């Protein structure tokens, strides 16, 4: 996985933190790797295990990767600045 520029990732060089967005909600993380569950919980998702976290190519853009609740998310790589939360699960009849 390629490391992205500060604009592509959420890296804020002036503060040494990662600034990301889940929808319109801004989050700041000191560490580069956190779980999808942590990101979703911080965004206010009550039952993160029932959702997936999707990384977008830009704000309001297309999903380029998805993470289940317990998956680690490396915020230092490209396209890890903008996210959205999508219901997981699904069956067929």
């Amino acid at each position, binding site marked *: 996985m390629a490391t992205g520029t500060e604009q592509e990732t959420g890296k804020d060089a002036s503060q040494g933190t990662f600034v990301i967005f889940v929808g319109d909600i801004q989050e700041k993380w000191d560490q580069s790797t956190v779980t999808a569950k942590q990101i979703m919980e911080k965004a206010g998702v009550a*039952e993160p295990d*029932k*959702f*997936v976290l*999707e990384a977008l190519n830009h704000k309001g853009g*297309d*999903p380029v990767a*998805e993470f289940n609740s317990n998956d680690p998310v490396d915020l230092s790589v490209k396209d890890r600045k903008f996210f*959205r*939360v*999508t*219901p*997981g*699960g*699904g*069956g*067929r*009849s």
Partner: protein
Amino acid sequence: MSDLESGLPQPFLDALRCLREKKDAEARVDAVSDNFAYVWMGKLAKNNGSEPTGGWLRLPLAFPHANPHGLITREALKRAAEGEVADAHHVGHDMCKPVAALGAAHYYSWTWENSPPPRAPEDIMGVVQWYERRIRKG
């Protein structure tokens, strides 16, 4: 608001309004059958730019207090790589009939099983993302 939409429950109309404001201003109800509305969404994201756009979300009139069930399209959905989406794909299924005159020919019998229940009209946005994810995963 069309005559078809004027008789729908308020929470459903609230969801439809949210969908129009945030995703697709042209979203509309094309048919109602067996307590489900067939909601046309021209901006439903698909895997291949060459695919005809749009599809009908089959949403219960009781939304958000009941779960979505099924997607109907004019053309078979394509996978990102090659081939067609085969997950619960039915060609010419009876479920297409309410919008058959508009070209519906493919039914994907996707259910909300094991998914978090919608709680508010605004959850329609998550529903659309859920449909788009299922299309992606094929």
